[in-house]
């Protein structure tokens, strides 16, 4: 049923571009007249549609207005100054550009310039001088904007040019829309720029390097009007297709604060290299090369700052990191039909942290009894990570080969000393301990994934399998942990329980995980083509096979007080090998019903069901026989769902989805057969070999509405996810008289959960005002069963915890042209935990953050930024407490040098010096509150130089 659909593709493109007849025009403040006329090819006797018409001031060539002819070959431009000598230029692809001078008489401001005739030829003017290309022209399906026709400040970048283009809007949150439709990608010379982040391109590339900006639709499937993407391509001038740009910065401030950064990026037509590095002790963390590139652009990031000091990060942090990015195209072609590209990036991060924490945890262990645990902790850690990633894609026609490789290396050194004191309901001391831990953890990980996709071209008459893909991934990890733990535990009620531990750990783990996945389908056109009864059916085969091996070698030694040497602990020292084989074959059957009224709507209802099975085998071999097990499970894990789509041409797209899923979770080795390490004084965990797999029934419902009206976009949606887990892995907790907990995992029914979310995005634009509103709301409910046995009566009782979480965030972004931007965020989170069973108690906490960020660009060189956030946390129920503080950061920036590439920034952070390290959280059986050290008020001055060169000259 393909023959009608080609029409719809054309209509969709029409709808997208029809809005472009409303071109914005450059207004001259003295404009009082209008010009109209028509453009014709007299030789072929036809009026030219979409011919470019430009009006410039004759004396200096300043652009006054521009437009394109309509379906009748006519144009009309308003706001044109009268009495001034002007030049009108008309151009069309394949024709000679015609220019003529004219003046709008003051006594006849509605000027009809008449018919302008074009003749076929090259686009030189009649006097053979190459004219400036028109600001806009239609070339086939592509709309082209010529950068030379728009005069901007000499230091303008691509972003400034994009803002001038009619129909193109750069929103406060970084998205770019063309006539209301979000672009899927922004390319430079047809390829992604430094990993594809739009800001790296739009905020670095100077407008003077740009030849033109192209806007076009890519129709990936000519038979589906919904399957099309909008793309913006920045075409560089011929001699500007290579260059470099970067940022070098150094800053120092009060309290020994510093920050250093160096980024440099080089590009050429086929290759791109970036080298980045930074060091600071102001909690600015970056996880990858992209974050550093994105946040060190020449234009600057404005109000929405992503890479900035994180005042909520615990402890004092000093970090340095660096990396590189390299991409190379083996073929000159890069598009949706063909590409051959290698992308490599590497990142190293070193972070030193000192955290000093003091907390108090209250746990309810009965209707009248509670335990209070005071903890003070001094933690010093050094984390070093290194990673190297590579990605190779070769796509030609129907086949795509993708290879991904990643290597990660992490070293983590920790030194921790702490003290715990546990008191009973009356406040009397029950027990206490002193701990010193030090550990060095080294891990290496290697991941490699290869996949091959075949997407064949098919019509109603294709009788073969046209779509299939196969993916293999392997991940090899090894980790070594050397640690030493010294603990002295004292029990008040029973001094016989006093213990001292001086234990050394040498843990070695190696895992190899492999997965092989296949997707074959759709088989129905192959099997049932032409048979009316089976029309609309889908049949797909999938298979996922994984095999995981985990080897663990642990050597634990305890210090012998007599010999003063470390002696093997034969209980804890063990070698084990854990393997899991998971095979999931899946047959998906589906049927789609269509209800189409050509040019009005397209409604689709799809029903599908997965006949899916699981073969799960887990095996553990260990030096301790009691830890060994070999279990095989054969499960039936079906899934079924309904999807409904309602597409109204040029109006809206509604999607509804309902899905039911049955699956199993399997216990881990530690849940089944843990070795109890008694040096974890207050929290011991034992195993349960009788554990059965947990069975999960889950239902999800989703809805999304997108409005396709031009310019002002509107989208909203909601989702619901709920489920029941039978044989839930619940905690069975036993509390002894010294306040020590021993946990076992048991199967219990009665776990339920429900998550609801909704979102809403609305955008308005009017002249230079832009407003974006977004609302996100999430609510979670859960009921968790467990057993609790306390030392009061030694009886195990069923205890149920009901949790309710709700988080709502409203954000508003407002920008006024290039001058002013503001960002207001209000977020409220509510948490409530209610216990039922052994005792009843409620713990509730409300946190609210109100944040206002403002940025003002007073001149092209001077800007001010300020953001204030008011934080409040109120706890009700047992242990009521409230914390409130205001965090205010402000900075002033000034640019020097004619090229504006030297920046001085003066910042004041936490101006009111109110930042508090507050700890406040609760869970099933307890809640914790306390304080932690973190970043406080400081002032800093930073100098940044932006070296840049585009092209050879």
């Amino acid at each position, binding site marked *: 049923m393909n023959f009608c659909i080609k029409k719809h593709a*054309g209509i969709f493109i029409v709808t997208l571009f029809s809005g472009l007849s409303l071109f914005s025009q450059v207004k001259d403040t003295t404009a009082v007249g209008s010009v109209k006329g028509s453009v014709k090819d007299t030789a072929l006797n036809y009026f030219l549609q979409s011919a470019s018409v430009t009006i410039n001031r004759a004396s200096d060539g300043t652009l006054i207005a521009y437009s394109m002819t309509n379906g009748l070959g006519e144009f009309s431009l308003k706001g044109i100054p009268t009495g001034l000598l002007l030049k009108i230029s008309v151009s069309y692809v394949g024709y000679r550009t015609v220019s003529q001078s004219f003046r709008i008489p003051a006594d006849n401001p509605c000027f009809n310039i008449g018919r302008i005739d074009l003749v076929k030829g090259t686009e030189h003017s009649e006097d053979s001088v190459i004219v400036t290309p028109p600001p806009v022209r239609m070339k086939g399906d592509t709309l082209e904007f010529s950068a030379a026709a728009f005069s901007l400040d000499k230091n303008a970048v691509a972003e400034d040019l994009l803002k001038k283009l009619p129909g193109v809007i750069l929103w406060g949150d970084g998205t770019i829309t063309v006539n209301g439709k979000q672009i899927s990608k922004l390319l430079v010379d047809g390829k992604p720029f430094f990993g594809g982040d739009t800001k790296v391109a739009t905020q670095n590339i100077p407008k003077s390097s740009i030849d033109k900006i192209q806007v076009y639709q890519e129709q990936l499937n000519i038979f589906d009007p919904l399957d099309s993407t909008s793309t913006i391509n920045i075409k560089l001038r011929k001699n500007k297709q290579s260059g470099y740009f970067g940022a070098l910065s150094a800053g120092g401030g009060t309290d020994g604060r510093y920050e250093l950064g160096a980024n440099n990026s080089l590009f050429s037509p086929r290759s791109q290299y970036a080298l980045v590095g930074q060091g600071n002790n102001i909690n600015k963390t970056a996880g990858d090369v992209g974050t550093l590139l994105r946040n060190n652009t020449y234009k600057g990031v404005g109000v929405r700052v992503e890479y900035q000091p994180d005042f909520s990060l615990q402890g004092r942090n000093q970090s340095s990191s660096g990396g590189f990015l390299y991409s190379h195209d083996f073929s000159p072609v890069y598009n949706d039909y063909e590409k051959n590209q290698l992308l490599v990036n590497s990142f190293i991060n070193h972070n030193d942290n000192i955290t000093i924490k003091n907390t108090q945890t209250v746990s309810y262990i009965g209707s009248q009894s509670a335990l209070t645990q005071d903890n003070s902790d001094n933690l010093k850690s050094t984390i070093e990570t290194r990673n190297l990633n590579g990605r190779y894609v070769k796509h030609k026609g129907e086949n795509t080969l993708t290879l991904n490789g990643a290597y990660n290396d992490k070293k983590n050194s920790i030194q921790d000393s702490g003290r715990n004191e546990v008191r009973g309901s009356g406040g009397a001391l029950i027990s206490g301990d002193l701990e010193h831990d030090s550990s060095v953890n080294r891990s290496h990980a290697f991941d490699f994934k290869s996949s091959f996709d075949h997407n064949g071209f098919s019509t109603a008459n294709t009788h073969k399998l046209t779509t299939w893909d196969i993916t293999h991934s392997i991940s090899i990890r090894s980790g070594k942990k050397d640690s030493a733990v010294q603990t002295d535990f004292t029990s008040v009620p029973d001094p016989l329980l006093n213990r001292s531990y001086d234990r050394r750990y040498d843990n070695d783990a190696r895992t190899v995980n492999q997965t092989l996945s296949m997707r074959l389908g759709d088989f129905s056109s192959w099997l049932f083509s032409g048979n009316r009864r089976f029309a609309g059916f889908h049949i797909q085969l999938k298979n996922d096979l994984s095999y995981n091996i985990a080897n663990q070698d642990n050597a634990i030694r305890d210090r012998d007080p007599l010999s003063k040497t470390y002696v093997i602990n034969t209980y804890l020292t063990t070698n084990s090998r854990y393997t899991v084989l998971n095979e999931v074959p899946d047959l998906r059957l589906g049927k789609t019903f269509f209800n189409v009224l050509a040019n009005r709507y397209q409604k689709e209802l799809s029903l599908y069901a997965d006949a899916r099975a699981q073969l799960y085998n887990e095996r553990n071999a260990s030096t301790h026989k009691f830890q060994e097990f070999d279990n095989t499970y054969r499960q039936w894990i079906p899934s079924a769902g309904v999807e409904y789509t309602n597409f109204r041409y040029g109006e809206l797209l509604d999607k509804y989805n309902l899905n039911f899923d049955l699956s199993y979770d399997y216990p881990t080795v530690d849940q089944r057969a843990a070795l109890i390490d008694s040096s974890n004084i207050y929290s011991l965990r034992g195993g349960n070999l009788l554990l059965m797999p947990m069975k999960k029934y889950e239902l999800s419902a989703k809805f999304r509405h997108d409005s396709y009206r031009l310019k002002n976009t509107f989208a909203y949606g909601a989702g619901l996810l709920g489920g029941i887990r039978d044989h839930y892995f619940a905690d069975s907790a036993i509390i002894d008289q010294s306040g020590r907990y021993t946990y076992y995992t048991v199967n219990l029914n009665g776990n339920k959960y429900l998550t609801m979310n909704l979102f809403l995005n609305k955008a308005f634009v009017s002249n230079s005002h832009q407003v974006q509103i977004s609302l996100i709301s999430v609510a979670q409910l859960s009921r968790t069963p467990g057993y609790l046995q306390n030392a009061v009566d030694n009886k195990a009782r069923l205890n149920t915890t009901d949790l309710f979480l709700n988080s709502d965030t409203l954000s508003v972004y407002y920008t006024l042209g290039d001058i002013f931007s503001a960002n207001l965020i209000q977020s409220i989170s509510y948490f409530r935990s209610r216990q039922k069973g052994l005792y009843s108690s409620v713990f509730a906490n409300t946190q609210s953050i109100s944040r206002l960020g403002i940025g003002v660009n007073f001149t092209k060189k001077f800007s001010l930024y300020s953001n204030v956030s008011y934080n409040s946390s109120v706890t009700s129920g047992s242990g009521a407490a409230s914390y409130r503080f205001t965090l205010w950061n402000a900075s002033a920036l000034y640019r020097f040098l004619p090229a504006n590439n030297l920046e001085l920034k003066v910042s004041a952070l936490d101006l009111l010096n109110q930042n508090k390290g507050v700890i406040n959280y609760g869970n099933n059986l307890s809640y914790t509150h306390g304080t932690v050290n973190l970043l406080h008020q400081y002032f800093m001055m930073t100098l940044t130089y932006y070296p840049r060169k585009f092209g050879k000259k």
Partner: protein
Amino acid sequence: MRYFILLFLILLSHSLWSQKFITLRLDPDNSRGGTASQVFDSIRFIPLETTKESLFGAIDQMEVTDSLFVILDIRGHSILLFDRSGKFYTRITTGGGEKYFYYFSIDRSKNEIVATNNYANGLLVYDLRGRFLRKEKCPDNIASFYHFSGNSVLYNLRRKGTYESSDHILYDLCYSHGYDSVVKNLKPYNARNEANEYNISSNPFNFSGEAGSCMFSMPFEYSIYQLADTGVICKYQFVFPLLHSLPLNFATDGAYRSLRGKFAYNTPGNESMITALERGCRFGDYMLFSAISRQSTFSADFNMAYNLHTSSLISFSRVTGDSSSSYFPILSTQLERVDAIYDGKIFSSSPGFRLFAIKNSLDKKVEYPESLQKYFTNGKKTDNAVIVQFKLKPGL
């Protein structure tokens, strides 16, 4: 000797008369345009009534009688009948679901509507009031057909999607006495080299505009055949510039076997290639046709008219509307095609959303004819299409 020469001339003229071969060399890039009043005559707009019963999707095929517009809406599972003033008369439906009508023809001698379908194992016959009369047996795999007078039917047979392993000769066309008695096959093809790799967006049969004949064309070929009940009476062979042409012998050369669809519809760089000629029909001295390619802009050359006398080519996307057409373009895009020729008039159509969009974008004051005034006042852009009836001026 004289008699011999006379006989030879008679035989020669007879053979020329029985099958003509005309080569048309056309360059769409240099086709001419004009204004509506220069090109069209007697333009009339006939909105089709929109009610809950009469709302339909698109005009996939239309035939005109003295009193009716008969319209096929394939995805709407219906054949609709409107009177010549646009008032809804009745609807013939398949019953919905996965049952479709694909094509119909009017037997004008019996005043019957005959429809192909995918569920009844035969042709379904209705009268002009939309009442079901009977089912007729017919050959398998009918794509479309045409009624000649004298109980003669010409069928276009659907090609299979799979290839034969040997050089099996099959036929695209066959004549039948009545509906189920094939007497002659036409237009052979080698099943090893050619199969069904195209997506037809329109039907290959049409009225020719000349009594007693019809026009037929296949995708990937640049030929339009004019057929009478005796066979091919004229073959129009189109030749386009290289930029717009598929490779030589694209349709018949076995080297392109199983690659044609992808080459024509999904290979970048081939967007300007004309992949099919559709809706070919004669209107006086003109050969009207649609040139199918992947160019989807509104200004792309699509519907054209070639003057067989003057060799001049008009592209209707270059004909701008004026006051004679209420500033609406006619035949200018894929959305407005030649739907039928009847009684010396050409019938096309325009979807509602297009008319409303053009009307709203005009900054002129336009005097609309009464039928359109009512349409714009009482209707909305989702209403049924509007029929446009007109003639072409001679000597363009």
